[in-house]
């Protein structure tokens, strides 16, 4: 008999006033009882609409059915058949606009907590099944993956399972891409990312850190000298965007990328870290996406009072709903329908205030969202000593500048076909390097698509 409660089992979490002062994970995860109870809310409907909402097509009703029976390892194996990073996706996927959006239970009441169940299953597996996967028999073919973020890790994992000899090249000193430098510890513990990376290594994947493709080794060399039969570029989004307003280079103006990298990758909040970071009193984070929420919540944890300044309304915030709720609970102040027009500084060039203008929403623009319009004469100042720009990124020019034969679009993204193949033979691409800043799961989907195409292409040649 299904559980007909209209509400999801709530996620046990650290109290807002405690968690906004530490970097430990906010959500604590379901207990086995809570997970089984939540799983019983699934009606196991025949047409499985949830699966169509999942970029990697996880067989959701089947894994949930196993959870309901208490067969957690079986549930894990069902997810792992299509998703390379279940513990990551369960935490960072925007479920409300994917699987859970299509859940029949969501028509009246809340959808099944698919993300929370995925997370439970992955965590259960990680703490109860310590065995690393076995290395498959090699098929003798070499593939290079550029970038160790979600797209690269997924592509590498899928190919390694098929017996390919995969090397992942990473520019930074740690593998994981945005999962380690961008998403904070309190939302995605780095031990989980490390575990996924270790799993790939057990499958035989080589991870070459400190290697910048385009600089240390070129794509030409990968194909011609190193003998990689295919190259997958998952190099991520790249250069952070800044507003074109006066004062943008004053001290205390950060890109979200820099602020988050100092905290997440370099652990600048720990006393033993040699990497500095400003400990601001009052911060304005500009932007309304997940990255803005992450930056705001990190700043809060460094002890600051934090504003989110966003030019549209609460309804239009592009961030995951849960992140917005968490941010509000933690005391972040939302200044929606506001936009900065100028940043001011003292005689040392240290930021001391930001001037904002009020906005109203007009007709929908090309993106389908209502266009924000400035209200003339509505400017006012907020005293802040730090401004963090979380406005998205533009593609990194490194590969473009150093590689011939790859076509790029007007915005600098790599042009690919439906298989992820670029205009250059044997070179595939996916993730933010193609789409511009998007989500972890979309990047994973692209890595998966490319892995399949690479396998088919190499088998066709052999």
């Amino acid at each position, binding site marked *: 008999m299904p559980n007909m409660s209209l509400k999801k089992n709530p996620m046990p979490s650290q109290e807002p006033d405690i968690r906004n002062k530490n970097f430990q994970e906010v959500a604590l995860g379901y207990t086995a009882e809570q997970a089984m109870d939540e799983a019983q809310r699934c009606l196991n409907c025949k047409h499985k609409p949830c699966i169509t909402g999942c970029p990697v097509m996880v067989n959701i009703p089947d894994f949930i059915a196993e959870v309901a029976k208490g067969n957690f390892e079986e549930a894990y194996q069902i997810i792992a058949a299509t998703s390379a990073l279940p513990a990551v996706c369960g935490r960072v996927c925007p479920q409300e606009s994917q699987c859970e959006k299509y859940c029949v239970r969501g028509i009246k009441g809340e959808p099944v907590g698919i993300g929370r169940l995925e997370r439970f299953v992955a965590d259960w597996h990680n703490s109860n099944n310590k065995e690393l996967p076995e290395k498959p028999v090699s098929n003798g073919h070499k593939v290079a993956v550029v970038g160790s973020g979600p797209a690269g890790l997924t592509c590498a994992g899928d190919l390694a399972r098929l017996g390919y000899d995969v090397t992942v090249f990473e*520019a*930074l*000193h740690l593998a994981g891409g945005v999962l380690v*430098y961008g998403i904070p510890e309190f939302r995605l513990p780095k031990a989980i990312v490390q575990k996924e990376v270790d799993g790939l290594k057990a499958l035989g994947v080589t991870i070459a*850190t*400190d*290697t*910048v493709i385009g*600089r*240390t*080794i070129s794509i030409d060399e990968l194909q011609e000298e190193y003998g990689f039969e295919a190259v997958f570029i998952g190099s*991520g989004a*790249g*250069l*952070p965007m*800044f507003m074109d307003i006066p004062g*943008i*280079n*004053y*001290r205390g103006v*950060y*890109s979200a*990328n*820099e602020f988050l*990298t*100092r905290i997440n*990758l*370099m*652990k600048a909040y*720990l006393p*033993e*870290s*040699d*990497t*500095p970071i*400003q400990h601001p009193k009052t911060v304005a984070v500009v932007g309304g996406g997940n990255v803005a929420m992450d930056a705001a919540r990190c700043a809060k944890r460094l002890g600051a009072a934090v504003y989110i300044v966003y030019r549209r309304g609460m309804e239009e915030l592009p961030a995951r709903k849960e992140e917005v709720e968490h941010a509000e609970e933690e005391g972040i102040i939302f200044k929606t329908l506001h936009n900065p027009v100028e940043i001011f500084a003292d005689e*040392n*060039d240290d930021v001391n205030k930001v001037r904002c203008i009020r906005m109203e929403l007009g007709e929908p623009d090309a993106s389908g969202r209502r266009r924000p319009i400035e209200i003339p004469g509505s400017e006012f100042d907020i005293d802040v000593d730090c401004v963090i720009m979380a406005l998205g990124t533009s593609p*990194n*020019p*490194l590969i473009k500048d150093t590689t011939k034969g790859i076509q790029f679009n007007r915005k600098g993204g790599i042009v690919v076909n439906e298989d992820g193949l670029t205009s250059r033979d044997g070179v595939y691409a996916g993730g933010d390097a193609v789409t511009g800043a998007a989500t972890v799961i979309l990047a994973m989907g692209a890595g998966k698509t490319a892995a399949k195409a690479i396998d088919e292409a190499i088998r066709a040649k052999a």
Partner: protein
Amino acid sequence: MFRIVRKEVLQPSVILYEIEAPLIAKKAQPGQFIILRVDENGERIPITIHDYDSIKGTVTIIVQTIGATTLKLSMLNEGDCLHNFVGPLGKATETEGRKKVAVVGGGVGCAIAYPVLKKFHDDGAEVHAIIGFRSKDLLILEDKFKAASNHLVVCTDDGSYGRKGLVTEALKELIDAGHQYDEVFAIGPMVMMKFVSLTTQPYGIPTTVSMSPIMIDGTGMCGGCRLSVGGETKFACVDGPDFDGHKVDWNIAVKRNQMYAEFEKHKYEEVCNLLNKEVR
């Protein structure tokens, strides 16, 4: 891991490190830089390449011991390894087609000025070198500069060696004496590069500076190294490190570079104390 195969103390606070990094050695060109991290808790710092040997597979850097990271680095010996060493980053310096150039180096910046100067020289330009140091006990690479330049001026701030005074004065004298340079190339402390640029501006001599702002990844991801150049925001790591010295907004660049001065002072003292305890 990246092994130190040679460590040479050039001056008490200026040390040369030759590091095993065959992939970087194969690709490096004058003007490019690397990012290194000494240990697990270490900061990522950019250091411009002094020399490279693609056959031996080594890259040489010259570093002045001035802060926590460089102090930790100075405690390593031949055979020890750096945690991370990545590059070559940034664009190489353009040296082709110049007939006559002046290369101005300041302090440990001379370590980087040298390969650029040598490249100009090898590419057939007449090269004048002006190198400046605070005092004699910081002087490095004089013989190398002498061998690769047509004219060398050594300056010290305190007059303890060569001529007393600033590199900008020596440069201005050479220009006023009628030397017509296609380009002036300056590498050193930001303040020095700023004043070299101000010196050449009235003469309209194209002036290139090698910027070394604060950086984390060095591949265009963080934006910490951004500069205002001709009113546009540029990233030193991917758009540079070389820029038109007449277009750089120096005031903001200098101040941004000192953003963490207090933290750095603190860290330096902390590492000093720690190392003293361990050493003694």
